[in-house]
Protein backbone atom coordinates (compact mmCIF):
# COMPACT_ATOMS: atom_id res chain seq x y z
CA UNK A 1 0.00 0.00 0.00
CA UNK A 2 1.43 3.36 -0.91
CA UNK A 3 1.59 5.78 2.01
CA UNK A 4 -1.06 8.48 2.17
CA UNK A 5 0.32 11.83 1.08
CA UNK A 6 -2.54 14.29 0.75
CA UNK A 7 -0.13 17.22 0.52
CA UNK A 8 1.19 16.05 -2.86
CA UNK A 9 1.29 19.04 -5.24
CA UNK A 10 -0.76 21.14 -2.83
CA UNK A 11 1.99 23.48 -1.63
CA UNK A 12 4.32 25.56 -3.76
CA UNK A 13 7.54 27.53 -3.58
CA UNK A 14 6.67 30.91 -5.10
CA UNK A 15 9.66 33.12 -4.39
CA UNK A 16 13.39 32.82 -4.00
CA UNK A 17 16.03 35.29 -2.85
CA UNK A 18 19.71 35.26 -2.09
CA UNK A 19 22.63 37.57 -1.30
CA UNK A 20 26.01 37.83 -2.96
CA UNK A 21 28.36 35.17 -1.57
CA UNK A 22 31.81 36.27 -0.42
CA UNK A 23 34.63 35.43 1.99
CA UNK A 24 33.77 38.44 4.14
CA UNK A 25 30.45 40.15 3.70
CA UNK A 26 31.22 42.64 6.46
CA UNK A 27 27.63 42.17 7.64
CA UNK A 28 25.93 40.38 10.49
CA UNK A 29 24.11 37.10 10.04
CA UNK A 30 20.86 38.93 10.66
CA UNK A 31 21.66 41.47 7.95
CA UNK A 32 22.26 38.66 5.46
CA UNK A 33 19.06 36.83 6.42
CA UNK A 34 17.08 40.03 6.09
CA UNK A 35 18.56 40.80 2.69
CA UNK A 36 17.80 37.36 1.25
CA UNK A 37 14.35 37.32 2.86
CA UNK A 38 13.33 40.68 1.42
CA UNK A 39 14.51 39.51 -1.97
CA UNK A 40 12.46 36.31 -1.69
CA UNK A 41 9.29 38.07 -0.52
CA UNK A 42 9.57 40.70 -3.26
CA UNK A 43 10.33 38.02 -5.83
CA UNK A 44 7.11 36.29 -4.83
CA UNK A 45 5.20 39.49 -5.47
CA UNK A 46 4.26 39.65 -1.81
CA UNK A 47 4.82 42.07 1.06
CA UNK A 48 5.73 41.48 4.67
CA UNK A 49 2.06 41.57 5.62
CA UNK A 50 1.54 38.36 3.66
CA UNK A 51 4.04 36.38 5.73
CA UNK A 52 2.49 34.58 8.68
CA UNK A 53 5.03 31.79 9.19
CA UNK A 54 8.81 31.52 9.35
CA UNK A 55 10.81 28.28 9.11
CA UNK A 56 14.54 28.73 9.45
CA UNK A 57 17.85 27.24 10.47
CA UNK A 58 19.50 28.26 13.73
CA UNK A 59 19.49 32.04 13.51
CA UNK A 60 16.55 32.85 15.80
CA UNK A 61 13.28 33.49 14.03
CA UNK A 62 12.39 36.12 16.60
CA UNK A 63 15.33 38.31 15.59
CA UNK A 64 14.66 38.13 11.86
CA UNK A 65 10.94 38.52 12.41
CA UNK A 66 11.59 41.73 14.33
CA UNK A 67 14.16 42.96 11.82
CA UNK A 68 11.74 42.39 8.94
CA UNK A 69 8.79 43.79 10.86
CA UNK A 70 6.67 40.70 10.38
CA UNK A 71 3.87 41.74 12.64
CA UNK A 72 2.10 38.46 13.33
CA UNK A 73 3.29 34.91 12.87
CA UNK A 74 1.12 31.91 13.60
CA UNK A 75 3.98 29.51 12.87
CA UNK A 76 7.70 29.68 13.55
CA UNK A 77 10.45 27.14 13.93
CA UNK A 78 14.22 27.02 14.13
CA UNK A 79 15.89 23.73 13.37
CA UNK A 80 19.29 22.51 12.33
CA UNK A 81 20.49 22.39 8.75
CA UNK A 82 20.84 20.69 6.30
CA UNK A 83 18.29 22.86 4.59
CA UNK A 84 15.44 20.54 3.85
CA UNK A 85 13.68 20.36 7.19
CA UNK A 86 12.82 24.02 6.81
CA UNK A 87 10.93 23.42 3.54
CA UNK A 88 9.16 20.30 4.79
CA UNK A 89 8.11 22.08 7.95
CA UNK A 90 6.84 25.01 5.93
CA UNK A 91 4.90 22.67 3.66
CA UNK A 92 3.29 20.95 6.62
CA UNK A 93 2.40 24.22 8.27
CA UNK A 94 0.81 25.62 5.12
CA UNK A 95 -1.06 22.43 4.30
CA UNK A 96 -2.42 22.06 7.81
CA UNK A 97 -3.54 25.65 7.77
CA UNK A 98 -1.50 26.75 10.75
CA UNK A 99 -0.43 29.58 8.47
CA UNK A 100 -0.77 30.49 4.80
CA UNK A 101 2.59 31.77 3.65
CA UNK A 102 5.94 30.85 5.12
CA UNK A 103 9.30 32.57 4.80
CA UNK A 104 12.22 30.11 4.92
CA UNK A 105 15.78 31.33 5.32
CA UNK A 106 19.27 30.06 5.98
CA UNK A 107 22.40 32.09 6.65
CA UNK A 108 25.99 30.92 6.44
CA UNK A 109 29.13 32.61 7.69
CA UNK A 110 32.83 31.90 7.46
CA UNK A 111 33.87 30.58 10.89
CA UNK A 112 37.06 31.63 12.69
CA UNK A 113 38.43 28.14 11.90
CA UNK A 114 38.07 28.65 8.16
CA UNK A 115 40.71 31.32 7.55
CA UNK A 116 43.31 33.50 9.24
CA UNK A 117 41.30 36.63 8.44
CA UNK A 118 38.18 35.15 9.98
CA UNK A 119 40.18 34.03 13.02
CA UNK A 120 41.16 37.64 13.64
CA UNK A 121 37.58 38.93 13.45
CA UNK A 122 36.48 39.51 17.05
CA UNK A 123 32.81 39.25 16.15
CA UNK A 124 33.27 35.80 14.67
CA UNK A 125 35.34 34.70 17.66
CA UNK A 126 32.62 35.81 20.05
CA UNK A 127 29.91 34.10 18.01
CA UNK A 128 31.88 30.87 17.96
CA UNK A 129 32.82 30.89 21.66
CA UNK A 130 29.37 30.48 23.20
CA UNK A 131 28.58 27.94 25.89
CA UNK A 132 29.15 24.23 25.60
CA UNK A 133 26.49 22.20 23.86
CA UNK A 134 25.93 18.47 23.87
CA UNK A 135 28.18 16.80 21.30
CA UNK A 136 26.93 13.78 19.31
CA UNK A 137 29.55 11.57 20.96
CA UNK A 138 31.13 12.10 24.37
CA UNK A 139 34.49 10.62 23.35
CA UNK A 140 37.36 13.09 23.59
CA UNK A 141 38.39 12.13 20.06
CA UNK A 142 34.99 11.76 18.45
CA UNK A 143 34.14 11.66 14.77
CA UNK A 144 31.65 14.44 15.42
CA UNK A 145 30.56 16.10 12.20
CA UNK A 146 33.30 16.65 9.60
CA UNK A 147 35.73 13.79 10.39
CA UNK A 148 32.93 11.24 10.20
CA UNK A 149 32.48 11.71 6.47
CA UNK A 150 36.16 11.25 5.73
CA UNK A 151 36.21 8.15 7.94
CA UNK A 152 33.13 6.58 6.31
CA UNK A 153 34.45 7.44 2.85
CA UNK A 154 37.59 5.55 3.82
CA UNK A 155 35.49 2.51 4.77
CA UNK A 156 33.63 2.69 1.43
CA UNK A 157 36.90 2.90 -0.48
CA UNK A 158 38.13 -0.15 1.43
CA UNK A 159 34.99 -2.20 0.69
CA UNK A 160 34.51 -1.27 -2.96
CA UNK A 161 38.05 -0.67 -4.12
CA UNK A 162 37.10 2.88 -5.04
CA UNK A 163 39.37 5.42 -6.72
CA UNK A 164 39.95 8.97 -5.60
CA UNK A 165 39.33 10.06 -9.21
CA UNK A 166 35.63 9.40 -8.54
CA UNK A 167 35.59 12.16 -5.93
CA UNK A 168 37.58 14.28 -8.37
CA UNK A 169 34.79 13.93 -10.94
CA UNK A 170 32.28 15.24 -8.39
CA UNK A 171 34.49 18.29 -7.77
CA UNK A 172 35.04 18.91 -11.48
CA UNK A 173 31.33 18.57 -12.29
CA UNK A 174 30.49 21.18 -9.67
CA UNK A 175 33.19 23.53 -10.91
CA UNK A 176 32.23 23.21 -14.57
CA UNK A 177 28.65 24.07 -13.66
CA UNK A 178 29.78 26.95 -11.44
CA UNK A 179 31.74 28.46 -14.32
CA UNK A 180 28.40 29.18 -16.01
CA UNK A 181 26.72 30.49 -12.85
CA UNK A 182 27.48 34.10 -12.00
CA UNK A 183 26.37 33.59 -8.41
CA UNK A 184 29.03 30.95 -7.75
CA UNK A 185 32.15 31.88 -5.79
CA UNK A 186 34.58 29.34 -7.29
CA UNK A 187 34.58 29.71 -11.07
CA UNK A 188 38.13 28.99 -12.25
CA UNK A 189 38.44 25.85 -14.42
CA UNK A 190 39.36 22.73 -12.44
CA UNK A 191 41.35 19.77 -13.75
CA UNK A 192 41.96 16.35 -12.22
CA UNK A 193 45.59 17.44 -11.68
CA UNK A 194 44.37 20.47 -9.70
CA UNK A 195 42.13 18.15 -7.69
CA UNK A 196 44.99 15.85 -6.72
CA UNK A 197 47.30 18.79 -5.99
CA UNK A 198 44.95 20.28 -3.39
CA UNK A 199 46.17 20.26 0.20
CA UNK A 200 45.10 17.19 2.20
CA UNK A 201 42.80 18.09 5.09
CA UNK A 202 41.30 14.82 6.30
CA UNK A 203 43.41 12.03 4.90
CA UNK A 204 43.71 9.80 3.10
CA UNK A 205 40.78 10.98 0.96
CA UNK A 206 39.59 14.51 1.67
CA UNK A 207 41.57 17.48 0.38
CA UNK A 208 40.55 21.12 0.14
CA UNK A 209 38.47 20.44 -2.99
CA UNK A 210 36.43 17.69 -1.34
CA UNK A 211 34.85 20.11 1.09
CA UNK A 212 32.29 22.84 0.62
CA UNK A 213 33.62 26.34 0.15
CA UNK A 214 32.83 28.55 3.17
CA UNK A 215 31.04 31.79 2.34
CA UNK A 216 29.08 34.59 3.94
CA UNK A 217 25.60 34.68 2.42
CA UNK A 218 21.97 33.63 2.68
CA UNK A 219 19.14 32.07 0.69
CA UNK A 220 15.43 32.49 1.28
CA UNK A 221 12.16 31.10 -0.06
CA UNK A 222 8.44 31.78 0.15
CA UNK A 223 6.10 28.81 0.46
CA UNK A 224 2.30 28.98 0.08
CA UNK A 225 -0.65 26.96 -1.18
CA UNK A 226 -0.75 25.89 -4.82
CA UNK A 227 -4.12 27.60 -4.99
CA UNK A 228 -2.73 30.95 -3.92
CA UNK A 229 0.34 30.46 -6.12
CA UNK A 230 -1.88 30.69 -9.20
CA UNK A 231 -2.47 34.39 -8.50
CA UNK A 232 1.21 35.22 -7.99
CA UNK A 233 3.68 36.35 -10.68
CA UNK A 234 6.14 33.43 -10.65
CA UNK A 235 5.59 30.04 -12.18
CA UNK A 236 4.71 27.89 -9.15
CA UNK A 237 7.21 25.21 -8.23
CA UNK A 238 5.17 22.48 -6.58
CA UNK A 239 6.49 20.37 -3.76
CA UNK A 240 5.61 17.00 -5.21
CA UNK A 241 7.21 14.91 -2.51
CA UNK A 242 9.20 15.83 0.56
CA UNK A 243 10.47 13.94 3.56
CA UNK A 244 13.11 14.15 6.24
CA UNK A 245 15.19 11.20 7.33
CA UNK A 246 17.50 10.03 10.06
CA UNK A 247 18.26 6.73 11.76
CA UNK A 248 18.82 6.06 15.45
CA UNK A 249 22.58 6.03 14.79
CA UNK A 250 23.02 9.66 15.69
CA UNK A 251 26.59 8.92 16.75
CA UNK A 252 28.67 8.53 13.64
CA UNK A 253 30.88 5.60 14.63
CA UNK A 254 27.98 3.25 15.37
CA UNK A 255 26.30 3.49 11.95
CA UNK A 256 26.11 -0.21 10.95
CA UNK A 257 27.14 0.59 7.36
CA UNK A 258 26.45 3.04 4.54
CA UNK A 259 23.44 1.04 3.34
CA UNK A 260 21.61 1.75 6.60
CA UNK A 261 22.00 5.51 6.84
CA UNK A 262 19.70 8.51 6.60
CA UNK A 263 20.06 8.35 2.81
CA UNK A 264 18.07 5.12 2.58
CA UNK A 265 15.44 6.38 5.04
CA UNK A 266 14.99 9.50 2.91
CA UNK A 267 14.83 7.81 -0.47
CA UNK A 268 12.55 4.92 0.50
CA UNK A 269 10.06 7.40 1.90
CA UNK A 270 10.49 10.00 -0.84
CA UNK A 271 9.81 7.59 -3.70
CA UNK A 272 6.91 5.99 -1.83
CA UNK A 273 5.21 9.40 -1.70
CA UNK A 274 5.91 10.31 -5.32
CA UNK A 275 4.03 9.61 -8.52
CA UNK A 276 7.25 10.25 -10.42
CA UNK A 277 10.11 7.78 -10.77
CA UNK A 278 13.79 8.28 -11.41
CA UNK A 279 13.38 8.23 -15.21
CA UNK A 280 10.98 11.20 -14.93
CA UNK A 281 13.58 13.40 -13.23
CA UNK A 282 15.07 16.24 -15.30
CA UNK A 283 17.48 17.74 -12.78
CA UNK A 284 19.44 16.03 -9.99
CA UNK A 285 20.67 18.14 -7.07
CA UNK A 286 22.63 15.86 -4.71
CA UNK A 287 24.03 17.60 -1.64
CA UNK A 288 27.81 17.94 -1.81
CA UNK A 289 28.92 19.36 1.51
CA UNK A 290 31.62 16.73 1.06
CA UNK A 291 32.36 15.21 -2.33
CA UNK A 292 31.75 11.74 -0.93
CA UNK A 293 28.19 12.51 0.23
CA UNK A 294 27.44 13.54 -3.35
CA UNK A 295 29.03 10.38 -4.78
CA UNK A 296 26.93 8.26 -2.44
CA UNK A 297 23.69 10.09 -3.38
CA UNK A 298 24.00 8.69 -6.92
CA UNK A 299 23.67 5.22 -5.39
CA UNK A 300 21.15 6.16 -2.74
CA UNK A 301 18.59 7.57 -5.20
CA UNK A 302 18.94 4.49 -7.41
CA UNK A 303 20.92 5.61 -10.43
CA UNK A 304 23.30 2.69 -9.82
CA UNK A 305 24.04 -0.10 -7.38
CA UNK A 306 26.09 -0.03 -4.20
CA UNK A 307 29.78 0.60 -4.90
CA UNK A 308 29.00 1.52 -8.52
CA UNK A 309 28.80 5.31 -8.32
CA UNK A 310 32.30 5.81 -9.71
CA UNK A 311 31.83 3.73 -12.86
CA UNK A 312 28.38 5.35 -13.23
CA UNK A 313 29.96 8.81 -13.24
CA UNK A 314 32.54 7.68 -15.78
CA UNK A 315 29.82 6.20 -18.02
CA UNK A 316 27.69 9.35 -17.79
CA UNK A 317 30.50 11.90 -18.12
CA UNK A 318 30.05 14.23 -21.07
CA UNK A 319 33.64 14.77 -22.19
CA UNK A 320 32.83 17.75 -24.35
CA UNK A 321 30.98 19.58 -21.60
CA UNK A 322 33.32 18.22 -18.91
CA UNK A 323 30.50 17.39 -16.52
CA UNK A 324 27.89 14.81 -15.61
CA UNK A 325 24.89 14.41 -17.91
CA UNK A 326 23.00 11.35 -16.73
CA UNK A 327 21.83 9.39 -19.74
CA UNK A 328 23.15 12.26 -21.83
CA UNK A 329 20.31 14.39 -20.47
CA UNK A 330 20.08 15.05 -16.72
CA UNK A 331 22.59 17.50 -15.22
CA UNK A 332 23.61 17.45 -11.56
CA UNK A 333 24.22 20.43 -9.29
CA UNK A 334 23.85 22.98 -12.08
CA UNK A 335 24.68 25.89 -9.75
CA UNK A 336 28.06 24.42 -8.82
CA UNK A 337 26.95 22.79 -5.58
CA UNK A 338 28.29 23.58 -2.16
CA UNK A 339 31.74 22.77 -3.50
CA UNK A 340 31.80 25.70 -5.94
CA UNK A 341 28.69 27.91 -5.62
CA UNK A 342 29.37 28.17 -1.89
CA UNK A 343 28.61 26.03 1.15
CA UNK A 344 24.95 26.40 2.14
CA UNK A 345 24.04 23.07 3.76
CA UNK A 346 21.59 22.57 0.89
CA UNK A 347 19.72 25.85 0.53
CA UNK A 348 21.73 26.60 -2.62
CA UNK A 349 20.63 23.28 -4.14
CA UNK A 350 16.98 24.18 -3.56
CA UNK A 351 17.46 27.76 -4.80
CA UNK A 352 18.95 26.41 -7.99
CA UNK A 353 16.20 23.84 -8.53
CA UNK A 354 13.52 26.51 -8.11
CA UNK A 355 15.25 28.90 -10.51
CA UNK A 356 15.77 26.17 -13.11
CA UNK A 357 12.15 25.01 -12.90
CA UNK A 358 10.92 28.60 -13.18
CA UNK A 359 13.15 29.16 -16.19
CA UNK A 360 14.94 31.96 -14.32
CA UNK A 361 18.46 30.50 -14.08
CA UNK A 362 19.91 33.02 -16.53
CA UNK A 363 23.20 32.06 -18.16
CA UNK A 364 23.09 28.52 -16.93
CA UNK A 365 19.40 27.80 -17.66
CA UNK A 366 18.66 24.32 -18.98
CA UNK A 367 15.67 24.36 -21.34
CA UNK A 368 12.48 22.50 -20.58
CA UNK A 369 13.12 21.18 -17.06
CA UNK A 370 9.93 20.09 -15.32
CA UNK A 371 11.13 18.09 -12.32
CA UNK A 372 14.02 18.09 -9.89
CA UNK A 373 15.20 15.49 -7.39
CA UNK A 374 17.06 16.81 -4.36
CA UNK A 375 18.98 14.72 -1.89
CA UNK A 376 19.72 17.23 0.82
CA UNK A 377 21.78 15.92 3.66
CA UNK A 378 24.25 13.32 4.77
CA UNK A 379 24.20 9.98 6.57
CA UNK A 380 23.45 11.16 10.08
CA UNK A 381 20.77 13.39 11.64
CA UNK A 382 18.97 16.17 9.76
CA UNK A 383 18.93 14.60 6.29
CA UNK A 384 16.10 15.03 3.81
CA UNK A 385 14.91 14.89 0.23
CA UNK A 386 12.56 16.75 -2.11
CA UNK A 387 11.00 16.28 -5.50
CA UNK A 388 9.96 19.58 -7.04
CA UNK A 389 8.02 20.00 -10.26
CA UNK A 390 6.24 22.49 -12.44
CA UNK A 391 3.07 21.87 -14.41
Amino acid at each position, binding site marked *: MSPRFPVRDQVAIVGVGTTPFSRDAGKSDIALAVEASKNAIRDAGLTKNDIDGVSATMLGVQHVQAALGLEKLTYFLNCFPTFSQQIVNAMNAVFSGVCDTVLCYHTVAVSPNNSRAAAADPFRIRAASGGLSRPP*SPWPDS*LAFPPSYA*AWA*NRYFHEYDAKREWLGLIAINSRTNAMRNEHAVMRAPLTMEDYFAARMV*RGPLFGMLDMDYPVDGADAFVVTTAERAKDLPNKPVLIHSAVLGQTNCTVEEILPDLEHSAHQVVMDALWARSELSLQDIDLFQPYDGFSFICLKWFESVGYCGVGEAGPFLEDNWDKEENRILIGGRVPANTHGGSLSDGGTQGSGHIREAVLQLQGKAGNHQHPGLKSALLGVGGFFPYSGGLILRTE
Partner: protein
Amino acid sequence: MPDSNVKEVLERFPNTWIDRDNFAMFEGFLEKRMLINRCQDCQKYFQPPWPSCPNCWSENVEPTEVSGNGVVHTFVILHTGALVGVEGVDYMKGYPLLVVELEEQEGLRVTGPMVNCANEDIRIGMPVRLNWIERQGHPVPAFQPA
Protein backbone atom coordinates in the same frame (compact mmCIF):
# COMPACT_ATOMS: atom_id res chain seq x y z
CA MET B 1 28.38 9.31 42.60
CA PRO B 2 29.89 11.02 45.69
CA ASP B 3 30.14 14.83 45.49
CA SER B 4 33.92 14.73 45.82
CA ASN B 5 34.21 12.53 42.71
CA VAL B 6 31.88 14.78 40.75
CA LYS B 7 33.95 17.81 41.68
CA GLU B 8 37.19 16.13 40.69
CA VAL B 9 35.92 14.79 37.38
CA LEU B 10 34.43 18.13 36.40
CA GLU B 11 37.65 19.90 37.32
CA ARG B 12 39.80 17.47 35.36
CA PHE B 13 37.61 17.85 32.25
CA PRO B 14 36.86 21.58 32.32
CA ASN B 15 35.77 21.96 28.69
CA THR B 16 33.82 18.75 28.26
CA TRP B 17 30.10 18.08 28.22
CA ILE B 18 29.65 15.90 31.30
CA ASP B 19 26.24 14.88 32.61
CA ARG B 20 24.77 12.17 34.81
CA ASP B 21 24.59 9.76 31.89
CA ASN B 22 28.22 9.92 30.79
CA PHE B 23 29.83 10.76 34.14
CA ALA B 24 31.01 7.21 34.86
CA MET B 25 32.84 7.07 31.54
CA PHE B 26 34.97 10.09 32.46
CA GLU B 27 35.44 8.87 36.01
CA GLY B 28 36.77 5.66 34.42
CA PHE B 29 39.17 7.67 32.27
CA LEU B 30 40.84 9.04 35.40
CA GLU B 31 41.52 5.44 36.52
CA LYS B 32 42.49 4.43 32.96
CA ARG B 33 39.53 2.09 32.72
CA MET B 34 37.31 2.07 29.65
CA LEU B 35 33.73 1.74 30.86
CA ILE B 36 30.90 1.06 28.43
CA ASN B 37 27.27 0.86 29.51
CA ARG B 38 25.95 -2.70 29.53
CA CYS B 39 22.34 -3.72 29.96
CA GLN B 40 22.01 -6.20 32.83
CA ASP B 41 18.82 -7.62 31.32
CA CYS B 42 19.55 -8.17 27.62
CA GLN B 43 23.34 -8.14 28.21
CA LYS B 44 24.01 -5.80 25.31
CA TYR B 45 26.71 -3.15 25.46
CA PHE B 46 25.80 0.19 23.99
CA GLN B 47 27.30 3.60 23.50
CA PRO B 48 27.04 6.54 23.90
CA PRO B 49 26.04 6.00 27.53
CA TRP B 50 22.29 6.52 27.31
CA PRO B 51 20.43 6.35 30.64
CA SER B 52 18.51 3.20 29.71
CA CYS B 53 19.02 0.35 27.27
CA PRO B 54 18.09 1.37 23.72
CA ASN B 55 17.54 -2.31 22.90
CA CYS B 56 15.12 -3.49 25.62
CA TRP B 57 14.44 -0.22 27.51
CA SER B 58 15.69 -1.71 30.77
CA GLU B 59 17.01 0.82 33.25
CA ASN B 60 19.22 -1.81 34.79
CA VAL B 61 22.37 -0.56 33.13
CA GLU B 62 25.92 -0.81 34.46
CA PRO B 63 29.04 0.99 33.24
CA THR B 64 31.17 -2.09 32.58
CA GLU B 65 34.90 -2.29 31.96
CA VAL B 66 35.87 -3.55 28.51
CA SER B 67 39.21 -4.89 27.33
CA GLY B 68 39.80 -2.23 24.71
CA ASN B 69 40.90 -4.90 22.25
CA GLY B 70 39.46 -4.60 18.79
CA VAL B 71 40.06 -3.94 15.10
CA VAL B 72 40.22 -0.75 13.08
CA HIS B 73 36.82 -0.33 11.42
CA THR B 74 37.85 2.86 9.66
CA PHE B 75 40.10 5.86 10.27
CA VAL B 76 40.91 9.39 9.20
CA ILE B 77 44.15 11.35 9.27
CA LEU B 78 43.19 14.84 10.41
CA HIS B 79 45.07 17.92 9.23
CA THR B 80 42.57 20.21 10.90
CA GLY B 81 40.42 19.98 14.00
CA ALA B 82 39.43 21.31 17.37
CA LEU B 83 42.64 20.34 19.23
CA VAL B 84 44.90 23.02 17.76
CA GLY B 85 47.84 23.65 20.06
CA VAL B 86 47.13 20.67 22.33
CA GLU B 87 50.21 18.62 23.23
CA GLY B 88 50.47 15.35 21.31
CA VAL B 89 48.22 16.59 18.49
CA ASP B 90 50.16 17.42 15.33
CA TYR B 91 47.84 18.43 12.54
CA MET B 92 50.77 19.24 10.27
CA LYS B 93 51.95 15.65 10.37
CA GLY B 94 48.39 14.35 10.51
CA TYR B 95 46.48 13.28 13.62
CA PRO B 96 45.28 9.66 13.23
CA LEU B 97 41.74 9.16 14.52
CA LEU B 98 40.43 5.58 14.62
CA VAL B 99 37.02 4.00 14.81
CA VAL B 100 37.66 0.74 16.67
CA GLU B 101 35.21 -2.14 16.77
CA LEU B 102 35.64 -3.73 20.21
CA GLU B 103 35.92 -7.49 20.58
CA GLU B 104 33.15 -7.59 23.20
CA GLN B 105 30.31 -7.18 20.69
CA GLU B 106 29.74 -6.81 16.95
CA GLY B 107 29.04 -3.18 16.05
CA LEU B 108 30.26 -1.84 19.43
CA ARG B 109 32.58 0.94 18.35
CA VAL B 110 34.55 3.70 20.02
CA THR B 111 36.95 6.37 18.81
CA GLY B 112 40.46 7.36 19.75
CA PRO B 113 43.82 8.30 18.29
CA MET B 114 46.41 5.75 17.12
CA VAL B 115 49.78 5.80 18.92
CA ASN B 116 53.04 3.90 18.37
CA CYS B 117 52.28 3.42 14.68
CA ALA B 118 53.20 5.47 11.59
CA ASN B 119 50.18 7.01 9.86
CA GLU B 120 51.12 5.24 6.61
CA ASP B 121 50.95 1.86 8.35
CA ILE B 122 47.36 2.17 9.57
CA ARG B 123 44.99 -0.25 7.81
CA ILE B 124 41.29 -0.98 8.08
CA GLY B 125 40.95 -4.38 9.76
CA MET B 126 44.20 -4.24 11.74
CA PRO B 127 44.03 -5.47 15.37
CA VAL B 128 44.62 -2.84 18.05
CA ARG B 129 44.68 -2.68 21.81
CA LEU B 130 43.95 0.04 24.30
CA ASN B 131 46.61 2.44 25.42
CA TRP B 132 46.23 5.65 27.42
CA ILE B 133 47.76 9.00 26.64
CA GLU B 134 47.97 12.00 28.93
CA ARG B 135 46.45 15.11 27.39
CA GLN B 136 45.15 18.38 28.82
CA GLY B 137 45.77 17.12 32.36
CA HIS B 138 43.91 13.81 32.19
CA PRO B 139 44.16 10.36 30.58
CA VAL B 140 42.57 9.92 27.16
CA PRO B 141 41.88 6.52 25.57
CA ALA B 142 44.10 5.75 22.60
CA PHE B 143 44.99 2.64 20.65
CA GLN B 144 48.12 0.98 19.37
CA PRO B 145 48.81 -2.02 17.14
CA ALA B 146 48.07 -5.23 19.06
